[in-house]
């Protein structure tokens, strides 16, 4: 069972260590460029640039999806494909 911490973000970091050192030069540009494929119904996106956590245990897989790089991609996808035009204040 897990230990409890107050901050859920720290909670993630407590149990899901990541390995950003694997790709220190990550910029995300390659992935972002693929988002321009607006016409494709299904975008099958290679996120090897930042999902790199090796996993010997199923339960600890893909820890880096909770990091800022993935969040940046998620936010951009939401803005590009599901932007709420009437409410968003984003300039993107």
């Amino acid at each position, binding site marked *: 069972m897990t230990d409890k911490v107050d901050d*859920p973000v720290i909670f993630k970091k407590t149990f899901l260590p990541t390995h950003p050192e694997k790709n220190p030069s990550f910029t995300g540009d390659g992935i972002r460029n693929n988002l321009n494929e607006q016409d494709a119904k299904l975008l099958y996106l290679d996120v090897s640039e930042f999902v790199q956590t090796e996993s010997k245990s199923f339960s600890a897989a893909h820890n880096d999806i909770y990091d800022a790089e993935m969040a940046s991609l*998620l936010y951009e996808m939401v803005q590009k494909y599901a932007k709420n035009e009437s409410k968003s204040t984003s300039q993107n």
Partner: protein
Amino acid sequence: MINIKEEFYSNFKKKRGTIFMLFLTLFILISCADKPRYSIPYEDSPYVSPERLQKGEKILGTADKDARVYHQVVTDSDSIPLTFDGYIIGVEKGPKERVSKYKRTRDSLGEDFYDRYLDNIYCSHALFPEENTVDKSCNVPSIANRDARLATGWKKSTLIKDLLQGVGWDHEEEAGKRHFISHIYSYSPADIKKSIKPVYNVYLDIARSHPDNGVKEYKSAFSAGMSALQGALKDDLEIRLMQAETAGKSYTHIFFCSMGWNALQEKAIGNFNSLFEQLRKQALKRDDTGFRPLVIGITWPATWADTWYTEKASYWNKAADADEIGTTIAASLLDQVILPLKSFDFQALDKQRKVDVKVVILAHSFGVRLTSSALFLKDLVYVGRKPLSKNVVDLYIGLEGAVSSNRFLAASNGKKHGKEGQPYVLTGFPDTKFVYTWSQYDTANPITATFPVKLWSGAKHIGGTPGFNNLTELFEGIEEGKKPLSIHFSRCS
């Protein structure tokens, strides 16, 4: 000496009332301190005793420690809450005979029961066999007829095996169990008085409706949970949207989320929090102060976490569970609750305007399997029950999905591929933008396509390299002009 004794007894007699009260107070304080806190009641009722909650747990078969972790938000007021506006929908698993009206009467239905059941599998009555009957009059759409299903290989799906034979491959303890919604909790972190509010709690319902100790089953658990989705939750959501609109803080997006394999409830909620905390930071980084997500997270019994080997061995069972929950509970949640909100109007506010909210599905690993099955198959599941919502999910994001890439495409020559069939081509792709991610460094998803596990599974999960290679090959094998959808394959150089 005698005088001292007499004086002591005399004083004791005079103050025995006070001493008794002191001991009573001490006893009460100790009693309270030793017990865990169960401090989340319904709004209209005070505290509910642990004994009453435990009674419900025993009836529903969720009393042992491995089961209790899936209703931790009910039993432990110190558990990690959702730190964003939203809901946690707690799904649990209990013996079919105890949590629904299901009875094992397959033999009495005749030898052709399996085929007849297949012919009706997409009817709501067949998916919810409360009375254990197969409705022959069910209006099965042509696309879902038996031939179509056989052509796509869906007959072999874990879902049907699960529904017919009970969840699981050949694990006796697991056989004959059914998923049900045990609780729905609402979270409003900014509201000091009602930051956590139960919308539905089967344990409290049992305590209320069966106060005596003689009850050993609660066959309404399954149907009550489904009713709570379409009743209490939907009502609560509509009120919430109206209040947000009135306060000038309307939500921009509704996110429906599910985590994957081996995620206990507390871990799943922690992961929801992490994802949305990071998203919030990204929005602020871009000066998007209007980004207001409403999070609806489903938690489910995603592990046999007793030992490392039972955890691993649970793969097939949990894969089937994800499909079952997806095509039943999650499909209903999407079709009957979330999507209709997009056309909900604010009549109560006397405003001739509708909700303006986008719907996004965001899932990980087995959560991708759960939500994909819900989204792709919901239109078949609910035919014959109620008019379908015409609203669509705007964006689907599947992170490192643990679902076979074979499910998405039927080969052009009609050849079946994979062991999970091609169920997602039955209805065609919904009018939704789909994004699935994969990584060459994902070492978990490819295991099912690696010897010796591939002998039993063979699934080329979409989240790993085998899934990417397989889907690319399948897609390229389809003649131009006959491709069922457009796919953009992304590969980092």
